[in-house]
Protein backbone atom coordinates (compact mmCIF):
# COMPACT_ATOMS: atom_id res chain seq x y z
CA UNK A 1 0.00 0.00 0.00
CA UNK A 2 2.85 2.33 0.70
CA UNK A 3 3.95 1.88 -2.91
CA UNK A 4 0.95 3.82 -4.13
CA UNK A 5 2.01 7.16 -5.53
CA UNK A 6 0.93 9.72 -2.97
CA UNK A 7 -0.33 12.89 -4.58
CA UNK A 8 0.24 16.19 -2.86
CA UNK A 9 -2.20 15.76 -0.03
CA UNK A 10 -2.14 19.26 1.31
CA UNK A 11 -2.48 21.44 -1.77
CA UNK A 12 -4.87 23.82 0.01
CA UNK A 13 -2.06 24.93 2.26
CA UNK A 14 0.35 25.69 -0.53
CA UNK A 15 -0.88 29.06 -1.77
CA UNK A 16 -1.25 31.07 1.42
CA UNK A 17 1.96 29.65 2.88
CA UNK A 18 3.97 30.72 -0.09
CA UNK A 19 2.30 34.08 0.11
CA UNK A 20 3.23 34.51 3.76
CA UNK A 21 6.79 33.48 2.93
CA UNK A 22 6.90 36.15 0.23
CA UNK A 23 5.48 38.86 2.46
CA UNK A 24 7.99 38.03 5.16
CA UNK A 25 10.89 38.11 2.72
CA UNK A 26 9.71 41.44 1.31
CA UNK A 27 9.57 42.93 4.81
CA UNK A 28 13.05 41.62 5.59
CA UNK A 29 14.27 42.89 2.22
CA UNK A 30 12.89 46.35 2.92
CA UNK A 31 14.62 46.29 6.29
CA UNK A 32 17.86 45.32 4.59
CA UNK A 33 17.93 48.47 2.45
CA UNK A 34 17.08 50.77 5.35
CA UNK A 35 20.71 51.73 6.05
CA UNK A 36 21.01 52.89 2.42
CA UNK A 37 17.85 54.96 2.77
CA UNK A 38 18.63 56.27 6.22
CA UNK A 39 20.18 59.57 5.02
CA UNK A 40 16.80 60.60 3.58
CA UNK A 41 14.78 59.07 6.40
CA UNK A 42 16.43 60.71 9.38
CA UNK A 43 19.92 59.26 9.60
CA UNK A 44 21.32 57.43 12.58
CA UNK A 45 18.33 58.22 14.67
CA UNK A 46 16.06 56.38 12.25
CA UNK A 47 18.51 53.52 11.98
CA UNK A 48 18.67 52.96 15.70
CA UNK A 49 14.88 53.09 15.90
CA UNK A 50 14.64 50.35 13.29
CA UNK A 51 17.23 48.29 15.15
CA UNK A 52 15.11 48.59 18.27
CA UNK A 53 12.04 47.53 16.30
CA UNK A 54 13.86 44.49 14.94
CA UNK A 55 15.03 43.51 18.42
CA UNK A 56 11.47 43.67 19.68
CA UNK A 57 10.40 41.67 16.65
CA UNK A 58 12.74 38.87 17.76
CA UNK A 59 11.22 38.98 21.24
CA UNK A 60 7.68 39.06 19.83
CA UNK A 61 8.35 36.15 17.48
CA UNK A 62 9.68 34.09 20.36
CA UNK A 63 6.69 35.05 22.51
CA UNK A 64 4.37 33.94 19.71
CA UNK A 65 5.72 30.42 20.02
CA UNK A 66 4.18 30.10 23.49
CA UNK A 67 1.38 32.66 23.23
CA UNK A 68 0.19 32.14 19.68
CA UNK A 69 1.05 28.57 18.77
CA UNK A 70 0.98 27.19 22.30
CA UNK A 71 -1.88 29.23 23.75
CA UNK A 72 0.06 29.97 26.94
CA UNK A 73 -0.36 33.58 28.02
CA UNK A 74 3.05 34.39 29.43
CA UNK A 75 2.77 37.81 31.02
CA UNK A 76 6.39 37.96 32.02
CA UNK A 77 8.25 37.45 28.80
CA UNK A 78 10.29 40.64 29.20
CA UNK A 79 12.15 38.79 31.90
CA UNK A 80 14.08 36.97 29.18
CA UNK A 81 14.99 40.26 27.53
CA UNK A 82 16.31 41.36 30.90
CA UNK A 83 18.24 38.16 31.48
CA UNK A 84 19.79 38.35 28.02
CA UNK A 85 20.74 41.99 28.57
CA UNK A 86 22.18 41.44 32.05
CA UNK A 87 24.16 38.35 31.10
CA UNK A 88 25.64 40.38 28.24
CA UNK A 89 26.34 43.44 30.39
CA UNK A 90 27.82 41.51 33.26
CA UNK A 91 29.97 39.39 30.94
CA UNK A 92 31.38 42.52 29.29
CA UNK A 93 31.96 44.10 32.68
CA UNK A 94 33.83 41.01 33.80
CA UNK A 95 36.07 40.97 30.76
CA UNK A 96 34.35 38.46 28.49
CA UNK A 97 34.22 40.17 25.10
CA UNK A 98 33.67 37.36 22.63
CA UNK A 99 30.17 37.50 21.14
CA UNK A 100 29.97 33.71 20.82
CA UNK A 101 30.82 32.91 24.44
CA UNK A 102 28.45 35.66 25.57
CA UNK A 103 25.65 34.38 23.35
CA UNK A 104 26.27 30.86 24.62
CA UNK A 105 25.93 32.15 28.18
CA UNK A 106 22.77 34.04 27.26
CA UNK A 107 21.20 30.92 25.76
CA UNK A 108 22.29 28.78 28.68
CA UNK A 109 21.07 31.07 31.44
CA UNK A 110 17.82 32.20 29.84
CA UNK A 111 17.15 28.56 28.91
CA UNK A 112 17.83 27.39 32.46
CA UNK A 113 15.62 30.11 33.88
CA UNK A 114 12.84 29.14 31.46
CA UNK A 115 13.25 25.48 32.36
CA UNK A 116 12.92 26.06 36.09
CA UNK A 117 10.17 28.67 36.03
CA UNK A 118 8.37 26.91 33.20
CA UNK A 119 8.38 23.60 35.07
CA UNK A 120 6.59 25.39 37.89
CA UNK A 121 4.28 27.71 35.92
CA UNK A 122 3.16 25.08 33.45
CA UNK A 123 1.58 23.10 36.28
CA UNK A 124 -1.08 25.79 36.14
CA UNK A 125 -3.24 27.14 33.33
CA UNK A 126 -5.33 30.19 32.51
CA UNK A 127 -5.24 33.13 34.88
CA UNK A 128 -2.92 31.30 37.25
CA UNK A 129 -0.36 30.87 34.51
CA UNK A 130 -0.59 34.59 33.68
CA UNK A 131 -0.11 35.53 37.31
CA UNK A 132 2.75 33.17 38.01
CA UNK A 133 4.75 34.19 34.93
CA UNK A 134 4.21 37.81 35.96
CA UNK A 135 5.33 36.98 39.49
CA UNK A 136 8.58 35.40 38.29
CA UNK A 137 9.32 38.45 36.15
CA UNK A 138 8.64 40.79 39.07
CA UNK A 139 10.91 38.68 41.22
CA UNK A 140 13.75 39.11 38.75
CA UNK A 141 12.96 42.82 38.43
CA UNK A 142 13.38 43.35 42.17
CA UNK A 143 16.48 41.17 42.30
CA UNK A 144 18.07 43.29 39.59
CA UNK A 145 17.22 46.55 41.34
CA UNK A 146 19.09 45.26 44.39
CA UNK A 147 22.09 44.17 42.33
CA UNK A 148 24.02 47.23 43.44
CA UNK A 149 27.37 45.96 42.17
CA UNK A 150 25.99 46.18 38.62
CA UNK A 151 24.18 49.47 39.02
CA UNK A 152 21.11 48.43 41.00
CA UNK A 153 18.12 50.62 40.31
CA UNK A 154 20.04 52.97 38.03
CA UNK A 155 21.24 50.33 35.64
CA UNK A 156 24.72 50.05 34.22
CA UNK A 157 26.38 51.77 31.27
CA UNK A 158 28.42 49.43 29.08
CA UNK A 159 31.76 50.64 27.74
CA UNK A 160 32.39 47.76 25.38
CA UNK A 161 30.48 45.75 22.84
CA UNK A 162 30.94 42.04 22.10
CA UNK A 163 33.36 41.20 19.31
CA UNK A 164 33.61 38.45 16.74
CA UNK A 165 37.26 37.66 15.90
CA UNK A 166 38.23 41.26 16.45
CA UNK A 167 35.28 42.69 14.54
CA UNK A 168 32.76 44.78 16.43
CA UNK A 169 29.67 43.43 14.71
CA UNK A 170 27.40 44.48 17.53
CA UNK A 171 28.49 48.09 17.77
CA UNK A 172 25.80 50.67 17.08
CA UNK A 173 25.55 51.51 13.42
CA UNK A 174 25.25 49.35 10.35
CA UNK A 175 27.24 46.53 12.01
CA UNK A 176 24.62 46.09 14.68
CA UNK A 177 21.90 46.71 12.13
CA UNK A 178 22.90 43.81 9.92
CA UNK A 179 23.77 41.47 12.79
CA UNK A 180 20.31 42.09 14.20
CA UNK A 181 18.67 41.63 10.82
CA UNK A 182 20.46 38.32 10.26
CA UNK A 183 19.44 37.03 13.68
CA UNK A 184 15.89 38.24 13.09
CA UNK A 185 15.69 36.48 9.74
CA UNK A 186 17.06 33.23 11.20
CA UNK A 187 14.69 33.28 14.17
CA UNK A 188 11.72 34.28 12.02
CA UNK A 189 12.37 31.33 9.76
CA UNK A 190 13.21 28.88 12.54
CA UNK A 191 10.12 29.58 14.68
CA UNK A 192 7.84 29.10 11.72
CA UNK A 193 9.47 25.80 10.77
CA UNK A 194 9.22 24.71 14.38
CA UNK A 195 5.53 25.63 14.51
CA UNK A 196 4.82 23.65 11.34
CA UNK A 197 6.88 20.61 12.39
CA UNK A 198 5.56 17.51 14.13
CA UNK A 199 6.50 19.18 17.40
CA UNK A 200 4.65 22.36 16.50
CA UNK A 201 1.63 20.38 15.40
CA UNK A 202 1.37 18.80 18.85
CA UNK A 203 1.82 22.24 20.43
CA UNK A 204 -0.88 23.79 18.24
CA UNK A 205 -3.21 20.88 18.94
CA UNK A 206 -2.68 21.20 22.69
CA UNK A 207 -3.81 24.82 22.45
CA UNK A 208 -7.14 23.62 21.07
CA UNK A 209 -7.73 20.52 23.15
CA UNK A 210 -5.02 19.40 25.60
CA UNK A 211 -6.99 16.44 26.96
CA UNK A 212 -7.35 14.97 23.52
CA UNK A 213 -3.65 15.43 22.83
CA UNK A 214 -2.91 13.55 26.06
CA UNK A 215 -5.29 10.77 25.14
CA UNK A 216 -3.36 10.34 21.89
CA UNK A 217 -0.24 9.53 23.88
CA UNK A 218 1.56 12.89 24.00
CA UNK A 219 2.84 14.38 27.23
CA UNK A 220 1.42 17.88 26.82
CA UNK A 221 3.47 19.25 29.72
CA UNK A 222 6.75 18.27 28.12
CA UNK A 223 5.84 19.79 24.75
CA UNK A 224 4.81 23.04 26.38
CA UNK A 225 7.91 23.13 28.53
CA UNK A 226 10.19 22.62 25.54
CA UNK A 227 8.40 25.40 23.67
CA UNK A 228 8.71 27.65 26.69
CA UNK A 229 12.44 26.99 27.00
CA UNK A 230 13.09 27.61 23.29
CA UNK A 231 11.02 30.77 23.48
CA UNK A 232 12.92 31.98 26.54
CA UNK A 233 16.28 31.35 24.87
CA UNK A 234 15.30 33.26 21.73
CA UNK A 235 13.98 36.17 23.76
CA UNK A 236 17.31 36.07 25.60
CA UNK A 237 19.04 36.68 22.26
CA UNK A 238 16.85 39.77 21.84
CA UNK A 239 18.05 40.88 25.28
CA UNK A 240 21.66 40.45 24.16
CA UNK A 241 21.02 42.71 21.18
CA UNK A 242 19.17 45.22 23.34
CA UNK A 243 22.19 45.57 25.61
CA UNK A 244 24.45 46.06 22.58
CA UNK A 245 22.16 48.69 21.11
CA UNK A 246 21.45 50.68 24.27
CA UNK A 247 25.00 50.21 25.60
CA UNK A 248 23.16 50.18 28.85
CA UNK A 249 21.31 47.63 30.97
CA UNK A 250 18.54 48.40 33.42
CA UNK A 251 16.06 46.45 35.54
CA UNK A 252 13.21 48.26 33.78
CA UNK A 253 13.77 45.98 30.77
CA UNK A 254 12.03 43.21 32.73
CA UNK A 255 9.08 45.36 33.78
CA UNK A 256 5.54 44.18 33.24
CA UNK A 257 4.94 47.11 30.89
CA UNK A 258 7.49 45.68 28.47
CA UNK A 259 5.90 42.22 28.82
CA UNK A 260 2.52 43.77 28.06
CA UNK A 261 4.03 45.55 25.09
CA UNK A 262 5.26 42.28 23.66
CA UNK A 263 1.79 40.79 23.99
CA UNK A 264 0.30 43.80 22.19
CA UNK A 265 2.79 43.37 19.35
CA UNK A 266 1.91 39.71 18.89
CA UNK A 267 -1.85 40.15 19.15
CA UNK A 268 -1.87 43.21 16.94
CA UNK A 269 0.31 41.58 14.32
CA UNK A 270 -1.64 38.32 14.39
CA UNK A 271 -1.31 35.41 16.81
CA UNK A 272 0.18 32.22 15.44
CA UNK A 273 0.91 33.64 12.01
CA UNK A 274 4.18 33.60 10.17
CA UNK A 275 4.60 37.36 9.89
CA UNK A 276 2.25 38.65 12.60
CA UNK A 277 4.73 39.25 15.41
CA UNK A 278 7.29 40.66 12.96
CA UNK A 279 4.81 43.17 11.54
CA UNK A 280 3.30 43.88 14.95
CA UNK A 281 6.64 44.74 16.54
CA UNK A 282 7.77 46.96 13.65
CA UNK A 283 4.40 48.70 13.63
CA UNK A 284 4.18 49.29 17.37
CA UNK A 285 7.73 50.60 17.79
CA UNK A 286 7.53 52.90 14.76
CA UNK A 287 3.99 54.18 15.31
CA UNK A 288 4.70 54.94 18.95
CA UNK A 289 7.70 56.95 17.92
CA UNK A 290 5.83 58.84 15.24
CA UNK A 291 2.82 59.56 17.45
CA UNK A 292 4.97 60.67 20.33
CA UNK A 293 6.65 63.22 18.02
CA UNK A 294 3.29 64.61 16.99
CA UNK A 295 1.67 64.91 20.38
CA UNK A 296 2.46 64.44 24.01
CA UNK A 297 -0.83 62.61 24.49
CA UNK A 298 -0.03 60.00 21.87
CA UNK A 299 -1.42 57.22 24.02
CA UNK A 300 -4.88 58.69 23.48
CA UNK A 301 -4.46 57.93 19.79
CA UNK A 302 -2.52 54.70 20.15
CA UNK A 303 -5.10 53.01 22.40
CA UNK A 304 -8.11 53.39 20.11
CA UNK A 305 -5.92 52.58 17.11
CA UNK A 306 -5.06 49.22 18.66
CA UNK A 307 -8.70 48.50 19.35
CA UNK A 308 -9.67 49.37 15.77
CA UNK A 309 -7.03 47.14 14.24
CA UNK A 310 -7.94 44.21 16.45
CA UNK A 311 -11.66 44.71 15.76
CA UNK A 312 -11.44 45.17 12.03
CA UNK A 313 -8.77 42.76 11.00
CA UNK A 314 -9.26 39.09 11.52
CA UNK A 315 -5.87 37.81 12.50
CA UNK A 316 -4.20 41.17 13.06
CA UNK A 317 -1.93 42.95 10.58
CA UNK A 318 -0.86 39.66 9.05
CA UNK A 319 -4.54 38.91 8.48
CA UNK A 320 -4.95 42.14 6.52
CA UNK A 321 -2.19 41.12 4.16
CA UNK A 322 -3.44 37.59 3.78
CA UNK A 323 -5.01 36.30 0.63
CA UNK A 324 -8.81 36.47 0.90
CA UNK A 325 -8.98 33.09 -0.75
CA UNK A 326 -6.95 31.57 2.02
CA UNK A 327 -9.62 32.20 4.62
CA UNK A 328 -12.43 30.76 2.48
Amino acid at each position, binding site marked *: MSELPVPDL*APVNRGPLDRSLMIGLIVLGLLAIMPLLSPILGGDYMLSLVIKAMIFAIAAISLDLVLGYGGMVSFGHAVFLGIGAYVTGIALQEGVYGAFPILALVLLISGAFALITGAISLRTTGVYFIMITLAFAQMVYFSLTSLSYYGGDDGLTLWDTPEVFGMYLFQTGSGLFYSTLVLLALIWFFVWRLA*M*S*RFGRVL*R*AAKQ*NPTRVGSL*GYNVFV*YRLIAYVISGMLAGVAGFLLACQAEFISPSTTSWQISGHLIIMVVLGGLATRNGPLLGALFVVLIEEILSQITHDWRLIFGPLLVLIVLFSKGGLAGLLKNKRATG
Partner: protein
Amino acid sequence: MSAVLTVEGLSKSFGSLKVTRDVTLELHTGECHALIGPNGAGKTTLINLITGILPAESGRITLNGRDLSDLPMHQRAAAGLGRTFQITSIFPDFSALENVALAAQSSDGGGMGIWRIAASDSGLNAKAADALDMIGLGARKDARGADMSHGEHRLLELAMAVVTNPDALLLDEPMAGLGRAESEELVDTLRSLKAQVPLLMVEHDMEAVFSMADRISVLESGQIIAAGTPEQVRSDPQARAAYLGEEAV
Protein backbone atom coordinates in the same frame (compact mmCIF):
# COMPACT_ATOMS: atom_id res chain seq x y z
CA MET B 1 -9.97 -16.01 23.99
CA SER B 2 -7.33 -14.19 25.94
CA ALA B 3 -7.92 -11.03 27.88
CA VAL B 4 -6.24 -8.02 26.30
CA LEU B 5 -7.50 -5.55 28.84
CA THR B 6 -8.41 -6.41 32.40
CA VAL B 7 -9.95 -4.17 35.01
CA GLU B 8 -10.03 -5.44 38.59
CA GLY B 9 -11.76 -3.91 41.58
CA LEU B 10 -11.87 -0.38 40.23
CA SER B 11 -13.48 2.20 42.56
CA LYS B 12 -14.04 5.92 42.51
CA SER B 13 -16.15 8.47 44.42
CA PHE B 14 -16.93 12.11 43.81
CA GLY B 15 -17.32 13.36 47.37
CA SER B 16 -19.94 11.13 48.92
CA LEU B 17 -21.18 9.87 45.54
CA LYS B 18 -19.78 6.45 44.70
CA VAL B 19 -19.66 6.46 40.90
CA THR B 20 -17.59 3.33 40.41
CA ARG B 21 -17.90 0.40 42.80
CA ASP B 22 -15.51 -2.47 42.62
CA VAL B 23 -15.81 -2.86 38.86
CA THR B 24 -14.14 -5.88 37.31
CA LEU B 25 -14.27 -6.68 33.63
CA GLU B 26 -12.23 -8.11 30.78
CA LEU B 27 -11.88 -7.33 27.12
CA HIS B 28 -10.91 -10.26 24.92
CA THR B 29 -9.21 -10.48 21.55
CA GLY B 30 -11.60 -10.05 18.67
CA GLU B 31 -14.64 -9.09 20.68
CA CYS B 32 -16.95 -6.18 21.07
CA HIS B 33 -17.79 -5.83 24.74
CA ALA B 34 -20.70 -3.46 25.27
CA LEU B 35 -21.15 -1.50 28.46
CA ILE B 36 -24.71 -0.38 28.96
CA GLY B 37 -26.62 1.28 31.77
CA PRO B 38 -28.93 4.20 32.50
CA ASN B 39 -27.83 7.84 32.37
CA GLY B 40 -25.50 8.66 35.22
CA ALA B 41 -24.64 5.01 35.85
CA GLY B 42 -20.94 5.84 35.66
CA LYS B 43 -20.05 4.54 32.21
CA THR B 44 -18.06 7.57 31.11
CA THR B 45 -16.40 7.72 34.50
CA LEU B 46 -15.32 4.10 34.10
CA ILE B 47 -13.76 4.88 30.71
CA ASN B 48 -12.04 7.89 32.23
CA LEU B 49 -10.64 5.76 35.03
CA ILE B 50 -9.36 3.13 32.65
CA THR B 51 -7.71 5.68 30.35
CA GLY B 52 -6.34 7.66 33.28
CA ILE B 53 -8.05 11.03 32.81
CA LEU B 54 -9.36 10.49 36.32
CA PRO B 55 -7.34 8.90 39.11
CA ALA B 56 -8.91 5.74 40.54
CA GLU B 57 -9.09 5.22 44.28
CA SER B 58 -8.37 1.53 44.06
CA GLY B 59 -8.13 -1.21 41.51
CA ARG B 60 -5.82 -2.51 38.83
CA ILE B 61 -5.76 -2.08 35.08
CA THR B 62 -3.62 -4.26 32.85
CA LEU B 63 -3.13 -4.19 29.11
CA ASN B 64 -1.54 -7.29 27.57
CA GLY B 65 -0.31 -8.22 31.02
CA ARG B 66 1.29 -4.85 31.69
CA ASP B 67 0.07 -2.98 34.76
CA LEU B 68 -1.06 0.49 33.74
CA SER B 69 -2.58 1.51 37.07
CA ASP B 70 0.15 3.94 38.04
CA LEU B 71 0.75 5.47 34.62
CA PRO B 72 -0.55 8.91 33.58
CA MET B 73 -3.04 9.20 30.73
CA HIS B 74 -0.54 9.82 27.95
CA GLN B 75 1.57 6.81 28.89
CA ARG B 76 -1.49 4.56 28.94
CA ALA B 77 -2.36 5.82 25.49
CA ALA B 78 1.18 5.24 24.31
CA ALA B 79 0.99 1.73 25.77
CA GLY B 80 -1.85 0.96 23.37
CA LEU B 81 -5.05 2.18 24.96
CA GLY B 82 -7.12 4.13 22.42
CA ARG B 83 -10.40 5.90 23.05
CA THR B 84 -13.10 8.16 21.68
CA PHE B 85 -15.09 10.69 23.65
CA GLN B 86 -18.84 10.91 24.28
CA ILE B 87 -18.65 14.65 23.77
CA THR B 88 -16.88 15.18 20.48
CA SER B 89 -13.26 15.97 21.12
CA ILE B 90 -11.37 16.94 18.01
CA PHE B 91 -9.15 19.81 16.85
CA PRO B 92 -11.47 22.38 15.27
CA ASP B 93 -8.70 24.45 13.63
CA PHE B 94 -7.13 21.46 11.91
CA SER B 95 -8.37 19.83 8.73
CA ALA B 96 -9.80 16.33 9.04
CA LEU B 97 -6.56 15.00 7.57
CA GLU B 98 -4.42 16.91 10.05
CA ASN B 99 -6.57 15.72 12.96
CA VAL B 100 -5.88 12.14 11.97
CA ALA B 101 -2.25 12.78 11.00
CA LEU B 102 -1.62 14.20 14.48
CA ALA B 103 -2.97 10.97 15.92
CA ALA B 104 -0.95 8.91 13.44
CA GLN B 105 2.35 10.56 14.25
CA SER B 106 2.02 9.58 17.91
CA SER B 107 2.61 5.95 16.98
CA ASP B 108 4.71 6.67 13.90
CA GLY B 109 7.86 8.55 14.76
CA GLY B 110 6.44 10.64 17.58
CA GLY B 111 6.10 14.37 17.90
CA MET B 112 9.64 15.51 18.45
CA GLY B 113 10.64 16.39 14.89
CA ILE B 114 11.31 20.11 14.78
CA TRP B 115 12.40 20.85 11.25
CA ARG B 116 10.46 18.90 8.61
CA ILE B 117 7.06 20.36 7.77
CA ALA B 118 4.57 17.90 9.24
CA ALA B 119 1.83 18.72 6.73
CA SER B 120 3.99 17.53 3.85
CA ASP B 121 5.01 14.25 5.47
CA SER B 122 3.58 11.97 2.79
CA GLY B 123 3.90 8.83 4.92
CA LEU B 124 1.77 10.30 7.69
CA ASN B 125 -0.68 11.82 5.24
CA ALA B 126 -1.16 8.52 3.44
CA LYS B 127 -1.77 6.74 6.72
CA ALA B 128 -4.27 9.37 7.81
CA ALA B 129 -6.02 9.31 4.44
CA ASP B 130 -6.30 5.51 4.65
CA ALA B 131 -7.92 5.74 8.07
CA LEU B 132 -10.36 8.38 6.84
CA ASP B 133 -11.21 6.23 3.82
CA MET B 134 -11.83 3.21 5.98
CA ILE B 135 -14.17 5.17 8.28
CA GLY B 136 -15.94 6.67 5.30
CA LEU B 137 -14.70 10.24 5.58
CA GLY B 138 -12.20 10.11 2.72
CA ALA B 139 -13.98 12.75 0.68
CA ARG B 140 -13.85 15.25 3.55
CA LYS B 141 -10.18 15.10 4.37
CA ASP B 142 -9.54 18.74 3.56
CA ALA B 143 -12.52 20.07 5.53
CA ARG B 144 -11.71 22.07 8.63
CA GLY B 145 -12.75 20.33 11.85
CA ALA B 146 -14.93 23.26 12.85
CA ASP B 147 -16.82 23.10 9.55
CA MET B 148 -17.79 19.44 9.78
CA SER B 149 -21.17 18.10 10.86
CA HIS B 150 -21.85 16.31 14.12
CA GLY B 151 -22.01 12.97 12.37
CA GLU B 152 -18.69 13.63 10.66
CA HIS B 153 -17.16 14.56 14.00
CA ARG B 154 -18.19 11.19 15.43
CA LEU B 155 -16.48 9.45 12.54
CA LEU B 156 -13.42 11.67 12.77
CA GLU B 157 -13.10 10.74 16.45
CA LEU B 158 -13.06 7.12 15.44
CA ALA B 159 -10.54 7.61 12.63
CA MET B 160 -8.19 9.36 15.09
CA ALA B 161 -8.47 6.47 17.52
CA VAL B 162 -8.05 3.77 14.89
CA VAL B 163 -5.04 5.23 13.10
CA THR B 164 -2.83 4.82 16.18
CA ASN B 165 -3.29 1.02 15.98
CA PRO B 166 -4.32 0.61 19.63
CA ASP B 167 -4.33 -2.77 21.36
CA ALA B 168 -7.69 -1.99 22.93
CA LEU B 169 -10.20 0.64 21.89
CA LEU B 170 -12.67 2.26 24.27
CA LEU B 171 -15.64 3.89 22.56
CA ASP B 172 -17.93 6.21 24.51
CA GLU B 173 -21.29 6.29 22.71
CA PRO B 174 -19.98 6.28 19.14
CA MET B 175 -23.55 6.39 17.74
CA ALA B 176 -24.72 9.34 19.85
CA GLY B 177 -26.51 11.86 17.68
CA LEU B 178 -26.14 9.91 14.45
CA GLY B 179 -29.02 9.45 12.03
CA ARG B 180 -30.36 6.02 11.31
CA ALA B 181 -28.45 5.47 8.09
CA GLU B 182 -25.25 6.80 9.62
CA SER B 183 -25.63 4.48 12.61
CA GLU B 184 -26.11 1.46 10.41
CA GLU B 185 -23.01 2.28 8.44
CA LEU B 186 -21.04 2.75 11.62
CA VAL B 187 -22.22 -0.61 12.96
CA ASP B 188 -20.83 -2.24 9.84
CA THR B 189 -17.55 -0.40 10.23
CA LEU B 190 -17.25 -1.38 13.88
CA ARG B 191 -18.11 -4.97 13.16
CA SER B 192 -15.18 -5.24 10.80
CA LEU B 193 -12.99 -3.18 13.12
CA LYS B 194 -13.31 -5.55 16.07
CA ALA B 195 -11.32 -8.21 14.25
CA GLN B 196 -8.45 -5.74 14.25
CA VAL B 197 -8.80 -4.37 17.75
CA PRO B 198 -11.10 -5.41 20.61
CA LEU B 199 -13.75 -2.82 21.44
CA LEU B 200 -15.13 -1.81 24.80
CA MET B 201 -18.17 0.15 23.75
CA VAL B 202 -20.51 2.30 25.81
CA GLU B 203 -23.72 2.68 23.85
CA HIS B 204 -27.38 3.57 24.39
CA ASP B 205 -28.56 2.35 21.00
CA MET B 206 -29.84 -1.09 22.02
CA GLU B 207 -30.39 -2.23 18.49
CA ALA B 208 -26.73 -1.57 17.70
CA VAL B 209 -25.59 -3.15 20.95
CA PHE B 210 -27.54 -6.37 20.53
CA SER B 211 -26.63 -6.69 16.89
CA MET B 212 -22.89 -6.39 17.32
CA ALA B 213 -21.84 -7.07 20.92
CA ASP B 214 -20.31 -10.42 21.79
CA ARG B 215 -20.69 -9.73 25.47
CA ILE B 216 -22.57 -7.13 27.46
CA SER B 217 -21.99 -5.73 30.95
CA VAL B 218 -24.76 -3.76 32.62
CA LEU B 219 -23.70 -0.94 34.89
CA GLU B 220 -26.03 0.61 37.42
CA SER B 221 -25.04 3.11 40.12
CA GLY B 222 -21.40 2.35 39.45
CA GLN B 223 -21.79 -1.40 39.82
CA ILE B 224 -21.87 -4.20 37.30
CA ILE B 225 -25.19 -5.90 37.98
CA ALA B 226 -25.24 -8.30 35.07
CA ALA B 227 -22.80 -9.55 32.46
CA GLY B 228 -22.80 -12.18 29.76
CA THR B 229 -23.78 -12.86 26.20
CA PRO B 230 -26.58 -10.75 24.70
CA GLU B 231 -29.00 -13.66 25.28
CA GLN B 232 -28.01 -14.02 28.92
CA VAL B 233 -28.32 -10.30 29.55
CA ARG B 234 -31.60 -10.08 27.71
CA SER B 235 -33.12 -12.65 30.03
CA ASP B 236 -31.50 -11.37 33.22
CA PRO B 237 -34.28 -9.99 35.44
CA GLN B 238 -32.00 -7.47 37.17
CA ALA B 239 -30.70 -6.11 33.90
CA ARG B 240 -34.22 -5.81 32.55
CA ALA B 241 -35.39 -3.99 35.62
CA ALA B 242 -32.42 -1.62 35.64
CA TYR B 243 -32.32 -0.57 32.09
CA LEU B 244 -33.68 -2.68 29.35
CA GLY B 245 -37.29 -2.49 30.44
CA GLU B 246 -39.61 -2.73 27.50
CA GLU B 247 -36.94 -1.94 24.94
CA ALA B 248 -35.45 -5.39 24.71
CA VAL B 249 -37.92 -7.72 23.21
